């Protein structure tokens, strides 16, 4: 998104060209102005878009840049949600500590997943992460004493100063901006380039002397860290967690958001998340068959814009030039 433009500005701000930085600033400012024009419910939806956008981006790190699509990120996300709520409701920790603990737990889970999954690729990677996610889901469902089983756990996790919808939205926006910048730097770093190399040809990277499993391990763990941030924010958004948060549907939703926005575009994840959450809410108001409409929309996206919404938009100016 930000690499093609820059011919006219050479000054660099925090690794971004001046042009990129100003676009980023405009987008964040526009997003920050949203609560002024939206109803509280819509602000809630916008908050959800940001949170799921982070989740989808974390999947994109692996899917778009390392060529490994994970179906276990919903579980990593959900573990963080569980830990944050458990830590603040049952253990009585302050929100910041609970938040940190949640992200840490997600990172650890991701590291375990990574150890088991990095030596596989393609459909085997997909199935392995799916199975690992299902294990987490099973534990959350059956370990009733801790997780509350089917009923989940509830409690007021959100810090008092962020109780108002708008304030919480701005806090999430600030968090999302930081995390997005971190991920953007991450995939453009030499390390990120290595991941792309692995995606394009694993054997060549290996013969060049790169430790492929180690790189994937670190990539997976970092991606889990970001998913954990999203999960911890979600805990504060929902004040509630149940096994459906760690379920397969959650992982699939994250992947769909990434795909709808555009695999490998990183920022497309927000567009994908916005598109899916908006669609869910608009369509379900009109018909109880909203899931069918959603399914058809995905099929249409896959046929007409397999590169995703952002990918498609990006291709348009390129075609004009030709």
């Amino acid at each position, binding site marked *: 998104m930000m690499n093609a433009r820059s011919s006219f500005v050479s000054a660099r701000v925090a690794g971004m060209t001046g042009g990129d930085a100003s676009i980023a600033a405009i987008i964040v400012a526009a997003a920050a102005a949203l609560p002024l024009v939206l109803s509280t419910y819509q602000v809630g939806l916008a908050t959800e878009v940001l949170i799921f956008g982070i989740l989808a981006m974390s999947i994109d790190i692996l899917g778009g840049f390392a060529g490994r699509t994970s179906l276990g990120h919903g579980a990593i996300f959900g573990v963080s949600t569980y830990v944050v709520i458990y830590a603040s409701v049952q253990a009585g920790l302050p929100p910041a500590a609970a938040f940190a603990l949640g992200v840490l737990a997600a990172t650890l889970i991701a590291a375990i997943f990574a150890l088991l999954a990095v030596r596989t690729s393609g459909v085997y990677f997909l199935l392995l992460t799916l199975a690992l996610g299902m294990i987490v889901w099973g534990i959350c469902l059956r370990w009733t004493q801790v997780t509350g089983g089917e009923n989940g756990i509830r409690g007021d996790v959100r810090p008092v100063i962020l109780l108002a919808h708008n304030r919480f939205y701005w806090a999430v926006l600030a968090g999302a901006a930081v995390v997005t910048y971190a991920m953007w730097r991450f995939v453009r770093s030499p390390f990120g380039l290595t991941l792309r190399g692995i995606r394009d040809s694993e054997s060549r990277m290996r013969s060049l002397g790169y430790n492929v499993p180690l790189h994937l391990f670190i990539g997976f763990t970092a991606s889990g860290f970001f998913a954990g941030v999203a999960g911890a924010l979600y805990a504060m958004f929902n004040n*509630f967690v149940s096994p459906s948060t760690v379920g397969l549907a959650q992982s699939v939703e994250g992947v769909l958001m990434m795909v709808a926005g555009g695999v490998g575009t990183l920022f497309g994840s927000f567009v994908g998340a916005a598109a899916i959450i908006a669609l869910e809410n608009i369509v379900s108001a009109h018909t109880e068959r909203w899931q069918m409409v959603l399914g058809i929309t995905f099929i249409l996206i896959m046929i007409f814009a397999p590169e995703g919404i952002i990918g498609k938009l990006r291709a348009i100016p390129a075609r004009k030039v030709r």
Partner: protein
Amino acid sequence: MDRRRFLKTTTAALAAMGAGTAPWRSAIAQAGPIKIGVLAPLTGVVASGGKEMVEGVQFYLGQVNNEMAGRKVELAIEDDASNPDTALQKARRLVEQGNCHMLIGNLLANTGLAVANYVKGTGTPYFIPIIAADDLTQRQRIKNVIRIAGYSASEFTHPLGDWALKQGYRKIATVSQDYTFGHEQCGGLAQVFTEGGGEIVQQFWHPLNTADFSPYLGQLADLKIDAIFTMETGADATRFIQQYASFGLKAKTPLLAAMNGTDQSVVRTLGDDCEGIVSPAHFAEGSDNQVTQKFVREYEAKYGKIPSLYGFSMYSGMMWIDAALKKMDGKVEDREALIEAVLKTELDGSPLGKSVKLDAFGNPIYDVYIRKVIKRADGKFWNVPTTTYPAVSQFWKYDPETYMKQPPYSRTFQGIKKA
């Protein structure tokens, strides 16, 4: 540059949308129809129950011409997809965008608990005729969450424990789905039964959606027990009752069930296998009470099936709201007054045919029937009352204070008295 133009136009469009909706929202807050948000699982694992919930609501509104206390009623029905996250989101929409005066519904305990936690913050009156989670009207009570026309999970199994003792049963084994609704119902029975000198020989907990019960039935056949208590919902109930019969246990050991195990939603899918099963409940569609029979007849005529717990409860819940609104001239905007009125309402006209009131915790006190599944003249099965326990509260004969000091029923705490 395209992106900039794109951004500009989108921002402009969004701003225009926002400007368009704002006056519309404030206009609606004036007097107008009573807006009731209905949350029901219309898709997902319990969709069939959810559809009957909506039927119950619409059946009642049809009878009163969509009017309560002289004001039109506007329903906003949302699908919670049997998923607590969706339920929460839909509740937000109904309250924040739909400006509903109250919410009613939800079927699965987890969806109800999620919504209850949300309305705790907004103060919106939320009525739960189906959600049975004990603690919502006990240890973790929320003032604006009221169980009108519903029941708490262990409310009916307490008297069942007493009834079992009076039948001379001394040893019982339980089979239940492994989640809170099951733990609570089994706990109610186990506590009263063991305190009265009975013994819970063994308890089996199985995951939801168990296809094959033979491992449990095999062990049950070897136990020396006087009766089996089972707590199953939906398809699990159907399968358990069928397999219980085909294992030949039906002839040997009497089967006691939680009320949902022999609810119409289950019994109508079964044949002779379900005959004779005993269960406790406030509602018995086979009761000879005139009012009950009238309700069942009319419901059957309209929807072609005997009403289940879902239809009945939502119907009665709507009637309860109506009765409360009549007392306060339909001034639904005053939430505090609405909650007070609902809590103080004694409902006379419900299909139960007797008056029902709430205890101090917002949970109804019922005459509890011990029911038996019997074949009707036309070959359909239904629940017919055999014994009545009058005025049973969620605390049975215990003192509420002391009762709530014991932990909530769970897989590890069943209230079993050590011999």
